[in-house]
């Protein structure tokens, strides 16, 4: 939950620092032809639609995409308004107030993963995109991304924009010190499973005792959980009847146990993500590996600075898949032009829209055709030793199983995540941690 807020704030850093080869591909070759936006009959009179998003820096990076749309559709003009860089404490409460009031929200609004469970549980506020033919887009998205856009009534209400995916970033200098391979393909082969990752960690720690193998508890937990949840019917903290299953889901326990193993083996640097300590440790080589969604590359390069360029590299994540973060677009039912709004949404979440956003802001596309576009598929990251970031992240989401987010998923996730950080840092004892973990989950679910 917290992570997603900061993701927005740090998108500025990400956007600036993602040194993909976007520049080489040329960002300004906007197609002159009309984008294929569903082939609708344009309305007779001119209308203006508002697109509301959030995030710092380039945020959704729709400047180019919206300009393309507006040039091709003189009668349906889109006004792109990024409301704020803060999702959780500004954007989300504001949008909820607009939904409740029945007016004020844009015709198309962006939504972060953290609030998707809540939105899916409020079908009355959103247009059914299936009504406008958008359910034909299913093959374009990984199952995970698609299913999260289907609400509790089984209707399609949101389509995916960017996706985090998951890779494993590592410090080549620390790996060298520990006598481990530094080439990214060899590193990926070190840890096909999470158990292998643990073993590598023990070897690392034996040679380099003064640095952590991993930064802290949370990223690893989320990655393992996403994989385990897939094995357990795609459920995390809530079953599909919105009943809390934090204590019953073996996937949650498995992810918890794994973090406990890592932490009690002394492999974590006991850091909380987004803390000052975490930033400093990143600059000073305080830990060797960290779970990396696509946007995290920008956070690392921005935080670690030029002095650490080429010291970081990107390998595959154990277990092969994972995701952290990503957004969706939706059309509030209060919109006066839901049909046209759905067409714009279709364009923005389609291949052209997502490739344009990737070129502009480095937002990794969730659309599979966009991932296969050369501008994305051949993207390399100079800061990370020219790691082929495009294919690495595409692979991490291809096999990702869909998961169900309950209405209060974000609250429960934040509450249990605190217990993990506390246990890792020592303010909660590990033998009491599971009981507390469940208690906090129950409290947060209210």
């Amino acid at each position, binding site marked *: *939950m*917290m992570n997603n*807020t*900061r993701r927005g704030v740090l998108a500025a850093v990400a956007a600036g620092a993602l040194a993909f080869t976007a520049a080489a591909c040329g960002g300004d070759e906007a197609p002159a032809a009309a984008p294929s936006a569903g082939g609708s009959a344009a309305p007779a009179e001119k209308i203006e639609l508002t697109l509301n998003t959030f995030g710092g820096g380039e945020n959704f990076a729709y400047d180019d995409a919206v300009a393309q749309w507006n040039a091709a559709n003189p009668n349906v003009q889109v006004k792109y308004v990024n409301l704020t860089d803060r999702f*959780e*404490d500004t954007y989300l*409460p504001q949008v*909820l*107030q607009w*939904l*409740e009031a029945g007016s004020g929200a844009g015709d198309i609004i962006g939504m972060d993963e953290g609030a998707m469970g809540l939105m899916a549980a*409020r079908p009355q*506020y959103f247009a059914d995109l299936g009504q406008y033919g958008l359910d034909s887009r299913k093959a374009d998205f990984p199952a995970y991304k698609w299913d999260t856009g289907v609400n509790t009534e089984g209707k399609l209400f949101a389509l995916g924009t960017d996706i985090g995916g998951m890779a494993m970033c590592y410090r080549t200098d620390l790996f060298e010190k520990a006598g481990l391979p530094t080439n990214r393909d060899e590193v990926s082969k070190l840890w096909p499973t999470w158990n292998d990752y643990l073993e590598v960690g023990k070897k690392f720690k034996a040679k380099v005792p003064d640095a952590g193998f991993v930064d802290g508890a949370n990223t690893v937990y989320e990655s393992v959980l996403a994989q385990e949840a897939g094995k357990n019917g795609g459920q995390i903290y809530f079953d599909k009847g919105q009943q809390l299953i934090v204590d019953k889901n073996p996937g949650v326990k498995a992810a918890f146990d794994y973090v406990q193993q890592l932490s009690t083996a002394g492999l974590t*640097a*006991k850091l*909380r993500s*987004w*803390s*000052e*300590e975490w930033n*400093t*440790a990143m600059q*000073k080589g*305080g830990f060797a590996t960290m779970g990396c969604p696509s946007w995290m590359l920008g956070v690392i390069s921005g935080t670690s600075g030029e002095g650490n360029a080429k010291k970081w590299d990107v390998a595959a994540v154990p277990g092969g898949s994972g995701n952290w973060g990503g957004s969706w677009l939706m059309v509030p039912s209060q919109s006066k032009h839901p049909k046209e709004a759905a067409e714009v949404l279709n364009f923005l979440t389609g291949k052209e829209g997502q490739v344009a956003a990737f070129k502009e802001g480095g937002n990794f596309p969730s659309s599979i055709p966009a991932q296969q576009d050369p501008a994305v598929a051949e993207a390399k990251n100079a800061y990370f030793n020219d790691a082929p970031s495009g294919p690495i992240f595409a692979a991490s989401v291809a096999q990702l199983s869909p998961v169900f987010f309950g209405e*209060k998923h974000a*609250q429960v996730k*934040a509450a249990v995540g*605190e*217990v993990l*950080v*506390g246990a890792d*840092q*020592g*303010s*909660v004892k590990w033998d009491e941690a599971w009981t507390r973990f469940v208690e906090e989950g129950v*409290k*947060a679910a*209210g």
Partner: protein
Amino acid sequence: MSLSVDAGSRTRTVPPGPRRHARPPGGRRFWSWLDLRATPYFFVSPYFILFAIFGIFPLIFTAWVSLHDWQLAGDKTFIGLENYTELLADDKFWNSVLNTVGIFVIATVPQLLLALLLANALNKKLRGRLVLRLSVLAPLITSVVAVAVVFTQLYGRDYGIVNWVLGWFGVDPIHWQNQKWSSWIAIATMVDWRWTGYNAIIYLAAMQTIPKDLYEAAAIDGASPRRQFWGITVPLLKPTIIFTVIVSTIGGFTLFAEPVMFGAGLMTGGTTGQFQTVAMFIVKEGFRDFQYGYAAAAAWILFLLIMITALINFAIVRGIGRSR
């Protein structure tokens, strides 16, 4: 007061009987009456109108919301006082009250004492007195968030300067966020760094209104500077001390930015709520978990707590110097 003065002058200026026929027509009379009677209210009204909109209305609306199970963009059901009964049994809420009171005490008591001593020192004849007086105010003009960010780095576990210095004396690195005592101290120092100078300047201003002859008389009677400070300065500063104590109470009970920044921007105030203040609790319930009703009830309880504590502090401080 100005109203009655105006009214008085009017009765004097309106001429009596003989010239009654010359008095203005009824409408004009009404307007001049309105001018004299209503204008003062009109001039003071902007404050009260704004206060009604931004003060009274939210207060009453919050009370109304607190009687509901009020979820943002969700269900709203009237539940009477259930939020309050639930809140009074919520150990997380009481934990946040304990943290708030704890941080308040360890921040405010040394802060006001230090401010008093500082003001006394600045009241002496010193070289570069103006520069010194201005410099104690400097922390106040820095952004509270900047202060909190810098202090959070100073108190860093792995690379913080405080642990580095403690390391010279063989103290193991302290994870300041991890324990109640350590996090309270860290936050209290942030508060003190910012507000000690402010209170010192207020005390200094008050000290300068104390007549010099009192000190001269005391000096002739052989009172030491220390005795003069406790026997003259402190008792005469009592109204000012009461003011600063009440303002500090309100500030301390609504403490928010420092603990938030200290806890990496989260409203949880540490992994087990070691330094979650009541204000953070309210924001967490209302704007993270969207339980507006519950948050509103907590806000009202906080309001009552501030009133009660301010009254207790007032009673305590009023006793200062009485025993002497």
